[in-house]
């Protein structure tokens, strides 16, 4: 019998969707696809589009949850109390930072997978939702930030005088940071960037931005491409170096994070107070505490001089593009899962992302994380 895939509508201001009609079209030969009413609407995909692609539109969420063998929900919590069927739930939950997210899925009939824990190998990249979200966030952070800015990005010589280019500072040059750099450069801004990982220097420079070099950072080969926490001395040094740039910056985009740890504080209150009137900070690390001392998650607040936007999910405002990427990620993962389901051999990708099996936490990283508390 064909498996049933259920696509849930997200909640809590999340406007992306886990599979797009294009993905559904390709899946329909392998399984039955059910889509909750209006699941894709905010991402620019109408129910008709899903229906055309071969999905069934279901308005009763409970029924959908119950009937599905594979349930896809990006980050919504699901009421599984009435569940009577063995199933796999796939999503992208910030579990290392917020363990409580597991709880609602702890049902003996449920296996929970979270793509946020995907190993960062070249092979897994096509399922890497973090990269997709980060890329979109990086782009949109610039657009959003510039929109809030009173000045324009490029230099402009005109009869009314010469407008100087905006200065943009990007902290953390991972996926999001690089995308932010590229976007700001495209618009003609002067971009400076900093990251603790040395290799990012060439990456930053390949995009035409200047890299702020600060020696003495610790790196760990074993962290799988991620940065690790730095000691206090170094952090102070970083803050001092960055202060000279933040004072001049019109827009700061911060993206620095360390998995499972609070985001490093790179911008102190003093540094913010010294900034120019009208400048803007977009803090993409807000959900793990933010890189700026003033950041509050999911809030925009206007200080005297500076507008601080704490938002780790700006990608929600480019929901269509993000959903196309995420849809492909989930699609690839689902196909991978289905192809491997039979055999019980160890698999880096599945083992890495499986949080609970039959309701029990089995993920090594999660267990390690829990134990440290």
């Amino acid at each position, binding site marked *: 019998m064909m498996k049933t895939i259920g696509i849930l509508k997200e909640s809590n201001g999340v406007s992306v969707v886990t599979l797009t009609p294009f993905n559904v079209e390709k899946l329909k030969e392998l399984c039955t696809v059910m889509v909750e009413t209006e699941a894709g609407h905010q991402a620019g995909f109408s129910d008709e589009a899903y229906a055309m692609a071969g999905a069934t539109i279901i308005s009763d969420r409970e029924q959908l949850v119950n009937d599905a063998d594979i349930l896809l929900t990006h980050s919504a919590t699901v009421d599984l109390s009435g569940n009577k069927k063995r199933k796999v739930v796939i999503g992208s939950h910030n579990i290392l930072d917020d363990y409580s997210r597991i709880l609602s899925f702890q049902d003996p009939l449920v296996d929970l997978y979270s793509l946020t824990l995907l190993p960062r*190998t070249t092979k897994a990249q096509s399922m890497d939702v973090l990269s997709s979200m980060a890329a979109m966030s990086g782009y949109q952070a610039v657009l959003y930030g510039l929109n809030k800015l009173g000045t324009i990005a490029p230099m402009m010589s005109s009869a009314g005088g010469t407008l100087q280019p905006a200065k943009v500072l990007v902290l953390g040059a991972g996926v999001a940071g690089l995308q932010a750099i590229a976007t700001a450069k495209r618009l003609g801004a002067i971009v400076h960037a900093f990251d603790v990982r040395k290799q990012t220097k060439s990456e930053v*420079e*390949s995009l035409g931005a200047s890299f702020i070099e600060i020696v003495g950072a610790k790196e760990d080969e074993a962290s799988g491409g991620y940065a690790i926490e730095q000691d206090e001395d170094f952090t102070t040094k970083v803050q001092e170096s960055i202060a000279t740039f933040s004072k001049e910056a019109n827009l700061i985009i911060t993206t620095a994070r360390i998995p499972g740890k609070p985001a490093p504080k790179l911008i102190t209150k003093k540094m913010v107070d010294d900034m120019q009137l009208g400048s803007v900070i977009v803090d993409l690390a807000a959900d793990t505490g933010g890189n700026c001392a003033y950041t509050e998650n999911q809030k925009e607040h206007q200080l005297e001089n500076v507008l601080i936007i704490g938002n780790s999910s700006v990608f929600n405002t480019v929901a269509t593009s993000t959903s196309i990427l995420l849809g492909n990620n989930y699609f690839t993962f689902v196909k991978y899962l289905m192809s491997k389901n039979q055999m019980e051999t160890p698999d880096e990708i599945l083992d890495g992302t499986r949080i609970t099996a039959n309701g029990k936490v089995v993920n090594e990283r999660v267990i390690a994380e829990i134990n440290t508390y």
Partner: protein
Amino acid sequence: MILGGNIGILAAAFSFIVGMMMLGSPDKAARGNRLLVLGMILALASTILVQSATHVEVPWLGIGVILAIVVIGTVIGRQVSYKFELTKMPELVSLFNGFGGAAAGLIGIVGLYTEESSGDMMSTLILSISVFLGFMTFSGSYIAFLKLGGKYKMRIPNNRSLTVFTLAISMLIIGLLLTHIDAELFIPTLLSLVVLSLLNGVFFASSIGGGDMPILISVLNGFTGALTAIAGVYFGSTIMILAGVFVTATGVILTFQMCKAMNTTLQKVLVGSTHFFAGGAESQGYEEIKETTSTKVATDLVLTKKVVIVPGFGLAVAKAQKACRELKNKLKQADIELKFVIHPVAGRMPGHMNVLLAEAGIEYSDILDLENGNEYLEEADLCLVIGANDVVNISAENDESSTIHGMPIVQTYKAKKVVVIKRSLSAGYAGIKNPLFEMENTDLL
């Protein structure tokens, strides 16, 4: 008649020079080649004329034989040259060069044999050098021919010492010949000179790195020129001297030009394999890397219809996007299609390559994604991989144990020819070896 012949020879000399000049500029090259043919015909005809005039009796039989041979040789030369694919042209050149060497060697043998009785030292010296250089060029060119085609697998240890050794012995034998050895010893001595020359060519050519083959051919071509010139002195043929000198001069300069284009020096080529890959290759466990040269790539580019560039992170680092744009423009003028195939994870961020290509002003219509790109690659004549590594790593397809197994890649191997442009053989982001570099149709620049 002699005057006519001499004027013919003068004309032939100028045809050669002007023809070569024209060969050097793209739009006149074809006419230049025709002029060269004319020069060759003139030279032969005039020589026959002059020779006939100096003989008491016109040697009709000899002329007949010559003409017959020339006609047959021409036909066969044509056959051979049309039997190979266009991409094999450099191989062919080296093959033909070998033939020229052999011809000189044979003619030298006859000369030595004839002169044996006369015992003119100068002539003997010239002719034995002719024999040595001729056969040495022959075997050397043949090895180059094999190497270029990737068919030469033999590994001779101590090539270089053997080269020197055979050279030394050959010199000794030539010395022997000069001292008027016994008539009965003459033939064996001659034969051993021939054998040693052949061996010398083999050792010499083997000692030179695969990537430097075009330089080797050019050097050998210079040798042929030189021996033609000295043979000309022996035969008292102005045109042979001139053409020989001329070929030598062009050969020498072309050799240096090529060295420059390949960022190496003649010394390095001949004496030590100081080439980038040679050192790195072994330490990184690669074997059978074919190196190429910008000369060759440029030639290849012109002989293609559809070209693909696969950009990677290295392109971004080297900021080579504008150069790609210029290449695009140039190829467009020559009506060659150039497309860019962007692998989803090329570079270090999503859309990295898009940003670069947009900056360089590449139209969206010239950018293909992985799927269309892989389709297009089937028709592509040449694929340039610029600073990409992991995204073209075939172990993702055929090595189950590879950490990137299962990742879709740009299937560059589908193209008739692949040239990988990067600084060394070092690995990409994923830190693994790339068997693509070892493939038959892949060259490294």
